[in-house]
């Protein structure tokens, strides 16, 4: 997005993801995080969580994807996030990533766009809440 098209209070295009056990297993391979709570359904059933959960970092990757979709390569070289993990995401959950611009700090040559972001499940429960910042030219 170009700076000229951004306004405080503006909502960014939502991103929707279905959490699949297959995706969690692939994420374990890619990240090297093989904690059984994510990939061993037999083990996970015996825990207070009652079943496998997605890596928090996998859901956070959805948030990063959401920001990349909105701001492109600027997110890769000038983005930052500060989030809290509020609840686990489970296989079968539909995660919606949403966000809105809360502030635009105009600076010489580069501006900083502040956003409030949310990942929530199909029940409307917050999975991740937080803030992001990204530098935008202009």
């Amino acid at each position: 997005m170009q700076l000229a098209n951004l306004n405080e209070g503006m909502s960014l295009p939502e991103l929707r993801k279905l959490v699949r056990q297959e995706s969690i297993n692939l994420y374990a391979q890619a990240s090297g995080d093989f904690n059984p709570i994510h990939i061993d359904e037999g083990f996970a059933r015996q825990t207070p969580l009652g079943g496998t959960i997605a890596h928090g970092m996998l859901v956070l990757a959805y948030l990063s994807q959401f920001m990349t979709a909105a701001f492109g390569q600027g997110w890769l070289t000038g983005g930052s996030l500060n989030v809290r993990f509020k609840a686990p995401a489970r296989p079968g959950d539909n995660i919606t990533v949403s966000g809105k611009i809360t502030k635009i700090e105009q600076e010489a040559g580069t501006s900083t766009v502040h956003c409030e972001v949310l990942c929530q499940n199909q029940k409307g429960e917050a999975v991740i809440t937080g803030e992001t910042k990204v530098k935008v030219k202009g």
Partner: protein
Amino acid sequence: MAESPRIAFAQLVIGYELPPNRFTLDGATVLTYLRAVEDESSLYQDSLVPPMAVAARAMAALGEGMSLPAGAIHVSQEFEFLGTVKVGENLTSYAKVSRKVDRGKIHMLTIDLDVCKAERQSVVTGKTGFILP
């Protein structure tokens, strides 16, 4: 090569630095990551690595360097993306205990992360927060 022993939570003190972890993300790993998160962005079709793939590997290195008690919960995360990484680039992740708080039965731990290319050029920095029983 023998693995370094993992340091136990009780032994962690503020300022403790975990052993640096050197790694590269090859094309197959990046492809697996992109399939896992179902990311088809054109940005990654020309050897760029998603920053969260770099971050994920740095987080896994944390688990290799320290041992947290059962019930530890990853509660908060900060990341700053400072530069792009290409497939096959040599990276090193550094991790340091920046906060350790004991409040009764609850313990809080914050680890600072810094993932660098050659000559210690940071590409991803962050803070990871845990609550432990």
